[in-house]
């Protein structure tokens, strides 16, 4: 039963007539944390009423979907990914009523909202775990994975290797070891227990009835464990997903599931199933290779990974991104590639965390506006639904000295005034300090300043999103790579029906000439999409183009 629903699809929450169940394919997703966005009550912590106040901003930017990082009650030892109550709101961020109101207002602005479903583990403070650990006979004992020794599942990799020595931790209360793939305060749920699966379904129903439009499922590959395996991507994990998806389809066909599975494309492919598992999954291996391509000034790493990416069901979509709330993960690269990335992007060892780099996009691009544009241009033109991390639209910086990944989770910088316009609280009360250095500090980088000028990064990003949304060739089209001899140029054609877009990216810091073989499009007129200017008609000879440093073009191919 749905208690409240304000889906943009219809007041009843069921698909409105003509509603597109594949809406997520056209989504431009904006990832944010309620805590970091805007504080309405002056306690130094962002909240839902504050977020609501900024919905006009989000709408104005042009994104279509908000992905909310965990906002549930939590001890906050892992920034909310350690959940102690799946159906509540962390009081610091507001109430359920605040959330409902935010959701409704988002939907009124045609903004969809997806939330986190962190089901691999809970906080050790969750009542379920408190009960499970209390006694081996407790009914919830089997809701978690216990062992008398730490010998089981030998050889399984440790994900948070900078802070954990083992995937097992001894519980002195329970006098047994419990399994955790992440922090020791995040015991893994036991998905071999049907009761667990049922309970998770109830959680999903709770939020679906409230009107959320999708769930980003955290840490999917690790749901199930089996002896003698890597405990990742097991068939039983897929069975759980299929089960939940089936239930979702029956009752909430417009809600989509997004998988966080940091795996090779061939392994992630399985999470789409036959269109009966996740509708969307992040393309993790693509992301570091975009950074590599720009540094190497060579399209090879990007092309290689995309050419290795398997086809997915028609109803499915990749989620592509540049940065997010976590470290820039380098799990899905070779050792040689990782060393290269560290040397190029994280020479300061303080920027390295686990197997990644904890920096935001702008500092990674050395604040180079051209590179920022190029990277975002690729993000918006490659196959998949783009995910934009809050603050990257204005080029926010980071602070690697804040520990863990907090450096990329600092308050949104709205203005150059008090607390960057984020909060009326005393600055010392903020949940994290503001960035204040002369380059990325809030006095220099803020929304208010950038919205005043047409030439700011923010204005440019808004335009970029607008142009991207002008054709579904980007969101739903196929891709054909052109392979000009100049390896510094990364060019491709996005096609959906008769809609064709030619994308040409210069990955190099210097101007580049390129001859494109466009004979298949002889007679077409390329129209540059940002300025609307037609370019010379394509003939039989190689189409010569020159690109400025880090420049890119999007051309709509017109046949006139």
């Amino acid at each position, binding site marked *: 039963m749905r208690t409240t629903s304000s889906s943009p699809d219809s007041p009843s929450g069921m698909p409105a007539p003509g509603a597109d169940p594949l809406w997520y394919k056209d989504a431009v997703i904006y990832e944010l944390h309620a805590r970091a966005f805007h504080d309405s009550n002056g306690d130094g912590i962002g909240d839902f009423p504050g977020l609501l106040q900024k919905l006009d901003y989000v709408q104005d930017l042009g994104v279509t979907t908000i992905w909310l990082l965990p906002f549930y009650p939590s001890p906050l030892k892992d920034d909310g990914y350690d959940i102690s109550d799946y159906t509540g709101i962390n009081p610091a961020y507001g109430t359920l009523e605040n959330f409902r109101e935010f959701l409704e207002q988002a939907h009124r602005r045609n903004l969809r909202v997806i939330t986190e479903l962190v089901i691999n583990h809970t906080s050790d403070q969750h009542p379920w775990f408190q009960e499970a650990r209390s006694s081996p006979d407790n009914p919830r004992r089997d809701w978690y994975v216990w062992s008398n020794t730490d010998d089981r599942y030998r050889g399984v990799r440790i994900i948070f290797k900078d802070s954990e020595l083992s995937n097992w931790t001894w519980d002195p209360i329970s006098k047994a070891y419990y399994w955790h793939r992440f922090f020791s305060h995040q015991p893994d749920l036991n998905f071999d227990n049907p009761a667990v699966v049922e309970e998770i379904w109830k959680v999903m129903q709770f939020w679906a009835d409230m009107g959320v439009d999708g769930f980003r499922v955290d840490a999917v590959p690790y749901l199930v464990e089996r002896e003698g395996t890597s405990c990742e991507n097991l068939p039983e994990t897929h069975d759980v997903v299929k089960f939940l998806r089936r239930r979702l389809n029956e009752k909430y066909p417009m809600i989509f599931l997004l998988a966080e599975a940091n795996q090779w494309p061939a392994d992630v492919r399985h999470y789409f199933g036959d269109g009966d598992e996740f509708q969307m999954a992040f393309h993790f291996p693509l992301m570091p290779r975009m950074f590599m391509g720009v540094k190497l000034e060579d*399209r090879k790493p990007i092309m*290689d990974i995309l050419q290795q990416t398997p086809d997915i069901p028609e109803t499915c979509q990749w989620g592509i991104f540049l940065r997010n709330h976590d470290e820039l993960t380098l799990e899905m690269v070779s050792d040689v590639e990782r060393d290269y990335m560290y040397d190029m992007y994280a020479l300061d060892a303080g920027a390295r965390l686990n197997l990644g780099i904890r920096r935001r996009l702008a500092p990674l691009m050395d604040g180079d506006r051209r590179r920022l544009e190029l990277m975002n241009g690729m993000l918006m033109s490659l196959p998949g639904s783009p995910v934009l991390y809050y603050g990257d639209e204005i080029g926010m910086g980071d602070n690697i000295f804040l520990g863990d990944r907090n450096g990329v989770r600092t308050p949104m910088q709205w203005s150059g005034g008090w607390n960057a316009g984020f909060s009326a609280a005393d600055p010392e009360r903020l949940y994290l300090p503001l960035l204040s250095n002369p380059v990325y500090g809030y006095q220099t980088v803020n929304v208010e300043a950038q919205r005043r000028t047409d030439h700011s990064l923010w204005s440019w990003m808004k335009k970029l999103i607008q142009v991207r949304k002008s054709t579904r060739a980007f969101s739903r089209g196929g891709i054909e790579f052109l392979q000009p001899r100049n*390896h510094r140029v990364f060019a491709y054609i996005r096609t959906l029906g008769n809609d064709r877009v030619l994308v040409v990216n210069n990955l190099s810091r210097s101007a580049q000439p390129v001859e494109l073989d466009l004979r298949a499009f002889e007679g077409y007129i390329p129209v540059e999409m940002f300025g609307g200017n037609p370019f010379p008609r394509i003939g039989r000879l190689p189409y010569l183009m020159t690109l400025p440093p880090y420049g890119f073009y999007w051309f709509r191919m017109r046949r006139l």
Partner: protein
Amino acid sequence: MAEERFLSDEFVSQLTAVGEVDIVVGLPTFNNRDTVQRVVNAILVGLVKYFPRQRSVLINPDAGSKDGTTEAVQAASIPDFRAVLASSPLRTMHVVSARYPGVQGESEALRMLFAAADLLGAKACAFVSPDLESITPEWIDALVQPALKDGFDFVGPIYQRRRFDGLLVKNLLHPLIRAAYGYQIEEPVGREVALSGRLASYFLSDQSHREDFPGLGAFEWMTTAAMAGGYRVCQAFLGPRVTASKRSALDLNTAIKEVAGSLFRCLEIHQSYWLSRQKCEQVPTFGFQPVLDLDPVRIDRKRMFQMFSSGVDDLRPVLEQILSPGTLEAITAIAKLEERQFRFPDDLWAKTVCEFAASYHHSAINRDHLLQALTPVYRGRVSSFILENGRAGSEDVELKLESLRQEYERLKPYLIENWNRKVR
């Protein structure tokens, strides 16, 4: 005078597509289809393994192969580098093939490579032969590393030679160059060398003597020009040099004409340098030299002696115009010895070479004839060398060679004196 345009449009177009690079590896070819793919693979693996982050290009100047060599070069690829190395290449691997105009010859190919290196701003440029059977990826590291990262301008090879292999180098080229130029470089006609970008640019700009150095001579010229130009010179152990194409003993005339003739010409071009060069210094050497003794090359010593003996006799009128009376008498005397007693002493041999060099310089006779006359005399030296060292181990042979080199050094004033003497 208008500058010459010698790079084809197609080649320039390919280079433009490649763009700026750090490393150029040159692989000149002519009808090497049977061997070239393995060489290309070794180069590619070497680049990926040892220079994964550098921008590199393999350039294949071809003299007009008719056997599908360039197609083989383009087709040579490693489908999955992970089968050979731990990872795939970071960067696009570029392989460019282009026909070079003009007469087939090393110097034309090298010129093309110098131009490519200059145009692409390469920091290091290595050259590799297409018929190598013994090349490994480590050769690329050994050659390129000193030029790319250690600041050297010229990297010569050191091959692990079989006993009695490379005797022309060991008895004539190496010791004469050492004495004259003052550098102890092992292989002055090494075909696997590397240059810094700036030395390649210098060679590109100094093409005035290009036609003087056919074949192997081009490498000799590079080696000596680097030394004479004050560039930083080093050498690197590569390993055995085994090629598919074998020079036959009947090619000795050509070898001497190319190699000795080129050396004498180099001495002329660089005389302002070596005539005043006082010291003799060791050349920094990189790499690991294995101690494994290879089987000796088989040489028909007796036949060599016979050809020497008869040659000295037949060519006496010619030798009289080249050698001093004392030297000629000494050679004539040893030519009459029994084969078993025959010895061609170090001092006599070194003196002979010095006089040949000086006579070449003075054009005492037609230079081609002069070089032809050197051939039988050289055969005598080879015969004696083998007779003396037939049972000696590698270390003992090396000691004998060092003694020979010191003899050359001792005779440098004699060389200078003869070089500078007024010709009547």
